[in-house]
């Protein structure tokens, strides 16, 4: 594993000098974005689940492209994966927040009607 990354890092360093590179931190970032989305329950929300799946697929695709040495395309695909992962995370968090807000508003309403 370590060896794999060090190979990539070396490769990236070499390619970076060439002007087009895929720095490993971006992969790690996207992986952690995917983990975060999954952790808040993105799989339970249909639309979030869809974007989470897209993120995972594209991360795999980017890694494949990297292996093939197609760094430019890999970087673009990884960017797409990151965008989908962030969207999946945010859709889930928004759903939870909306639900909480609705509950709080319902509580206020219930409190209002209880005393009328």
């Amino acid at each position, binding site marked *: 594993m370590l060896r794999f990354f060090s190979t990539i890092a070396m490769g990236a360093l070499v390619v970076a000098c060439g002007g087009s590179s895929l720095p490993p931190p971006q992969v790690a970032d996207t992986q952690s974005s995917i983990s975060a989305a999954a952790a808040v329950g993105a799989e339970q929300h249909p639309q979030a689940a869809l*974007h989470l799946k897209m993120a995972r697929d594209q991360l795999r695709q980017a890694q494949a492209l990297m292996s093939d040495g197609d760094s430019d*395309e890999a970087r*673009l*695909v990884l*960017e*797409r994966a990151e*965008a*989908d992962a*962030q*969207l999946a995370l*945010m*859709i889930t*968090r*928004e759903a939870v*927040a*909306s639900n*909480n*807000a609705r509950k*709080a*508003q319902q*509580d*206020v309403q219930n*409190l*209002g009607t209880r*005393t009328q």
Partner: protein
Amino acid sequence: MKKSYLLCSALGVLALACGASGPTPELMDARRAYDQARQSNAATYSPDKLLTAKQALERAEAAHQDDAGSFNEKSLAYVAQRKAELATVYGDYEKARRDQTEAEQAYRDRQDQLRRNAEQKATEAQRSLAITWDNLSQAKQQLANQMQKSEAQLAEERAAREKAERAAADAMASLAKVAMVKEESRGTVITLSGQVLFVTGKSELLPIARDKLNEVVRALKEMGDDKLALIEGHTDSRGADDANMRLSLDRANAVKDYLVSQGVSANKLRAVGRGEASPVASNDTPEGRANNRRVEIIIQNTDQAAAGMGGQGAAQGQGSSSNPGGTNMGTGSGAPGGRQ
């Protein structure tokens, strides 16, 4: 010919240009998503995310200018669309959080208000209970005061009545020393000897008679305002009936006048002459005749007097067959009462 060639080539260039610079479906989606984001909650609640989306779209547009239809353009447009959607969702998220915070604040405010209302109600209830309790205590106190007062009043009245009764009894006792007092059905009968009151054959009172009559006055006053007194003059059988009748009436009137002069109300007194018609003893002995010469004062209750006087007068008239004028004298004595 030349003109149409130029037109053709211009159309061709236009067609070529359009074909070359036509946006990809990804870019069109990205633009649409960004337009939606601008009109969403993002404008208010997440302007920074909206700015990021704008920059992403600008990168995609630049890529489109640079190399229309390229993978680069498509990828950047894809990313721009996601960033625009993210901005929209982020705006909704921020708004939801704010809504939640506001609702929770409203909930706390409402709860506070309810608690204050409840406390106020409790305070009011307590106050009204205190007032009720106060009123109750006052009423109880008043009742106790009234009971005390009425007991005191009753005691006072009882004492006054006892005092009056004692005074009346005292008066009757001292009267009994100077005259004979008897309780009869016609009332309390006070009998005063004629010898003590008058000179023989006359109707002027002797000085000593006044002392005795003063006791009668005292007794009458003590017995109260509701008493009526009938004053009857009696003689023995010696002498003419007419003369005896007149003498007995004159003597009864003399007693009445004296009582009035001592403050007894005249309209409570009535004087009648019975002559020799109602002896209490035999006229055959000096002692009997002395007993028959007398003045009787009959003290009656008001109601008893109103019913009884007429009846008594009638009975008297019937009983004294030898003296038909008895009734006349009896009923006519009201007028002589004011005579001098």
